């Protein structure tokens, strides 16, 4: 790990201003992903800003029927919150499908959104990776691609986003509240938050340098039945091959988002209109233009079958 200077910020604005003063600085909250990457020297921040004392650890009503989740609310606490379990079960389910209890006790809401990819070629510093070192190429393309993207990817990068929580947040149309180094605040709709890799896979979201996430807002509950079904290589504690988040309303309409297939949580609102026609029709819309390789071609039928499983449960009234 490279040496770094360290400070504990006292307010969100102070943290953002500190980040602007120290180019290349990183905020640290749970640290469960950042420290791993620092040990491998994939992340080499010269300055680390500890944001754990900012008090952003509450879940409050928004006053508009939704919830405001503080950036530092731990994954365990968000999943266990009674309001989330009752009204946003897809979010609880997604959180509980991710990582281990030890990691969920530490990992935060904002940090979870900002997880880096688990692409093995990003993690192996002997391999070319445009995300780790822009312009160096992509060893994953033509390599072992079982875990990697089938849609929305580019000639520069075929990495997937690893988060389960973010898939549920995408489904729920969450808003991401931030503060910038000049002290101004804004809310970024999650639909505008994540970027596709294009030619700049190292730029993963629309945060400006030094911009700090302070909260994630959830709109009023959608009702309906909530599902998060994750398919992985072992029964627990593994990243998704594919995952399906869905809210299905009594009339058969609803929303669907996918994990494990793209550089960002994957949602195509036009495809959701096909929900009453079944999983095949929805998958055709969701994965239109998919480009697969021998190793990951299985993801297309796996998405369709996992979605069919979810829709069958919804029809039969089985719980999340």
């Amino acid at each position, binding site marked *: 790990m490279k040496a770094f200077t360290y400070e504990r910020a006292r307010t969100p604005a102070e943290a953002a201003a500190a980040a602007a003063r120290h180019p290349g600085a990183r905020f640290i909250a749970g640290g469960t992903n950042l420290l791993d990457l620092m040990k491998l020297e994939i992340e080499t921040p010269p300055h680390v800003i500890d944001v754990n004392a900012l008090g952003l650890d509450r879940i409050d009503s928004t006053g508009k029927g939704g919830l405001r989740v503080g950036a530092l609310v731990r994954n365990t606490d968000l999943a266990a919150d009674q309001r989330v379990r009752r009204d946003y079960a897809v979010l609880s389910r997604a959180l509980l499908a991710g990582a281990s209890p030890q990691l969920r006790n530490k990992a935060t809401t904002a940090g979870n959104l900002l997880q880096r990819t688990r692409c093995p070629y990003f993690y192996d510093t002997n391999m070319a990776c445009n995300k780790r070192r822009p312009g160096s190429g992509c060893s994953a393309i033509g390599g072992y691609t079982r875990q990697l993207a089938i849609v929305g990817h580019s000639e520069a990068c075929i990495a997937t986003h690893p988060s389960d929580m973010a898939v549920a947040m995408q489904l729920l149309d969450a808003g991401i509240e931030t503060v910038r180094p000049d002290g101004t605040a804004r809310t970024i709709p999650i639909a505008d938050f994540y970027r596709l890799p294009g030619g700049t896979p190292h730029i993963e979201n629309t945060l400006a340098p030094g911009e700090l996430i302070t909260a994630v807002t959830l709109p009023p509950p959608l009702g309906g039945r909530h599902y998060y079904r994750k398919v992985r290589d072992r*029964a627990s504690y593994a990243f998704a091959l594919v995952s399906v988040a869905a809210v299905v309303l009594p009339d058969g309409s609803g929303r669907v988002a996918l994990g494990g297939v793209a550089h960002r949580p994957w949602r195509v609102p036009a495809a959701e209109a096909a929900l009453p026609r079944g999983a095949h029709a929805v998958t055709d819309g969701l994965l239109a233009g998919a480009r697969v390789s021998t190793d990951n071609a299985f993801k297309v039928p796996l998405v369709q079958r996992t979605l069919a499983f979810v829709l069958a449960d919804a029809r039969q009234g089985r719980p999340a």
Partner: protein
Amino acid sequence: MTDPNEIDQTRRDLLIGGALSASVAVLPAVANAQGPDTGGVAATPAPVKAKVALRVNGQRYEMDLDTRTTLLDMLRERLRLTGTKKGCDQGQCGACTVIVDGRRINACLSLAVMHEGAEITTIEGLGTPDRLHPMQAAFVKHDGYQCGYCTPGQICSAVAALDELRRGIPSHVTADLNVQPLFSPQELRERMSGNICRCGAYSNIIEAITDAGGRPA
């Protein structure tokens, strides 16, 4: 407060400590060398120290640590509490599980300096050979290990897992999110999935936790 440097040390400890100091002394030269892939980042700054005060197993410590020191390395290398084990050092095996402010975490994926004011419990703080914690006694009774390397992490994790279950925290296998989760082998297996046992003592581990969990808290 105890200065950890004033703890009685055996000759062996001193020798280990001396070797560690020597290896620390060469670090700056290593740090200045070109790393495997720095992504074009400029020369690394010299090691930086920061102060942290915290409690471990009821004892208060104040330390001046290299900011890079993980909570795990602080416990093992600085406080000589070697019950907590380093397995993968990347949050995948759970051997380093300790309880911080009542919650189990992976000590390898946390910086020591992030724990100012924290109360940390390690396997040494749960029980002693003469007065075993009920979970330790249950692991012995049910033979919940072979080589024993993952065991301190398994036991700290299990103690906290039972607490999470009592507090009604749901898991991936909880059928109904809106009722108290069951105290069942299926729940325990899922809740212990962050602790890997290379020897495969899982069935005995679940029996030990079931036994310990069945006793009054």
